[in-house]
């Protein structure tokens, strides 16, 4: 596998920064009461999304969870339409029907954010199966959390993918917690995904999920493997969320030292340091950050001033004919 090129390095940095700033803004808007309902941030986990997105082909497919803002954004979904969706505005990527937990941009290969744990693993496998049957060379990449490895759908999907040798990559973002419960209190193995891989005839792959280069390297490897017809992979990326599980959860159930240790390994800070060591000029990195701020500001403004979805849209798009009629 290649080391990332200088351009890729800058993209990886920019992607992480864009995701970070976008989600920080989402959090602010939540606290201001402009983002209703709930929101699950991937702050601190950006390297996983960035590393994979950079390695994927444009027609590859991403399946993610409620904690999927990073993934959807970094596949190329327009930031303003994502922000609009979070705010429940007409310009939302799903017209306000989806909300924070359900971002989808099919045109960009962001095939949906699924809010019921485990359900999207077989769906991702199915998209890969279609790629196999249609011989399109696409790979389906499916992100989920450590807690998800204990639900039945995980087992069925990974098994089926292995038996049919499907071009799908399952990526467990192990952030050590399923909501408020530490994963090791509810799992009898140390590595909830990697230690299960042999149960499906797969290798257990563990990667430092806060090192974007490492993620990018693994991503290239497992994507090639899938594209070459060698079947699925199950990757466990060790990472950590900076904040709580959702909404305003302060995450107090986590030991201070643990939080401090991981905050010190912020993937963006780590990567900035590395890039500077590689000789990239600080002001080039600063410019990336400034641009990201501008992009977030713009997306926020556009969305805040967008109208609410029209009342007529309530009854549209239940069916392919655009409507919702169940009778004549």
């Amino acid at each position: 596998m290649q080391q990332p090129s200088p351009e890729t390095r800058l993209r990886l940095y920019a992607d992480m920064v864009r995701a970070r700033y976008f989600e920080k803004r989402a959090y602010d808007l939540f606290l201001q009461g402009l983002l209703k309902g709930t929101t699950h941030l991937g702050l601190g986990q950006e390297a996983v999304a960035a590393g994979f997105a950079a390695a994927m082909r444009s027609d590859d497919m991403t399946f993610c969870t409620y904690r999927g803002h990073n993934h959807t954004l970094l596949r190329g979904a327009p930031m303003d339409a994502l922000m609009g969706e979070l705010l429940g505005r007409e310009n939302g990527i799903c017209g306000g029907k989806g909300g924070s937990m359900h971002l989808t941009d099919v045109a960009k290969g962001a095939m949906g954010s699924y809010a019921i744990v485990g359900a999207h693993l077989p769906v991702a496998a199915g998209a890969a199966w279609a790629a196999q049957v249609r011989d399109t060379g696409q790979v389906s990449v499916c992100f989920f959390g450590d807690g998800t490895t204990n639900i039945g759908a995980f087992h069925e999907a990974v098994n089926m993918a292995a038996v049919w040798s499907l071009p799908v990559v399952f990526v467990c973002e192990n952030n050590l917690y399923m909501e408020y419960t530490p994963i090791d209190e509810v799992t009898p193995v140390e590595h909830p995904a990697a230690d299960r891989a042999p149960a499906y005839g797969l290798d257990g792959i563990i990667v430092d999920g806060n090192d974007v280069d490492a993620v990018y390297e693994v991503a290239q490897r497992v994507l090639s493997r899938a594209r070459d017809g060698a079947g699925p992979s199950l990757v466990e990326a060790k990472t950590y969320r900076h904040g709580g599980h959702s909404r305003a959860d302060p995450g107090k159930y986590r030991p201070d030292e643990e939080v401090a240790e991981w905050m010190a390994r912020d993937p963006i800070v780590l990567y900035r340091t590395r890039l500077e060591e590689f000789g990239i000029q600080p002001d080039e990195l600063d410019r990336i950050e400034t641009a990201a701020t501008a992009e977030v500001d713009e997306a926020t403004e556009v969305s805040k001033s967008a109208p609410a979805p029209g009342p007529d849209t309530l009854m549209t798009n239940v069916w392919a004919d655009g409507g919702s009629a169940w009778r004549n």
Partner: protein
Amino acid sequence: MAELTYRDAVARGIAQEMERDPSVVLIGEDVAKAGGVFKTTAGLLERFGPERVRDTPISEEAITGMIMGAAMNGLRPIGELMFSDFLATCWDIVANQIAKTRYMTDGQVSLPLVIRTANGGGARFGGQHSQSLENWAMAVPGLKVVAPSTPADVVGLLAGAIRDPDPVVFFEHKALFAGKGEVPDGEIVDALGTARVLREAPDITIVALAAMVPKALEAAAELAEHGIGAEVIDLRSLVPLDTATLFASVSKTSRLATVEENPRLAGWGAEIASIVTEEMFWDLDGPIVRVTTPHIPLPAADELEDLAIPSVERIVDTVRRTMA
């Protein structure tokens, strides 16, 4: 025109569509090499090959999840659930994912898929392999619900379901598999949401579905001997629902009986009765009566199962009582 069993009509319907459209594929437990446990998919593997007709592990969430994902990426997949009771083992995928995805993505995602499944009682299989669950599917917005009563309808409605751009749950009735009927030659495609008036008569409308249709017809014949003219409608699909045909009939007869195999509470009969009560109240000459399986799990012993599922006798009695 050939005589075909309902069972063979399933394979014929699938073959017709697989022939026409290379994106149609079929997966399920024992559907390929074994030709299905009810032999409804016999011959398809041989004809269309292992890439398009494929056996799966016992993983209903994977089966339904995979056809969903495949439908998102260019296929028109059919997934078989061996028994409709197993809908429960993948209900999240069916009711929370497949049904809701088009709406939640505001139309970005189309799911042209069909879930075929063997439904209904009468085979003495006991409570976990005999349920009529069409009402479960009807209660979930975003699912179309089809249940044919004849071999010809199996072919036509299956083709209609496969071509439909929306997800369809297609209930094949176990008690009808062995029955035969005429099936026209050539391609047959039926529109979903078209009920069929199978018997015209002036006094009361009886609506039925799947295995209840022949019973309703038999009951109507008996009722005629008692001087009651019962019109019989085969709904064929619950979603979309052909209320036009229903209303036309009730406005003529002013009376309605529903005959459903699902258990009593919140069944499709209740929905139909409620629609008619709300919209045709002033046309009604008497109460709407529902003949249903009682609100109990199904027993295995033949005498008990026969008592549980609506019988011709029970339909006749119920209608006579309400017309008295």
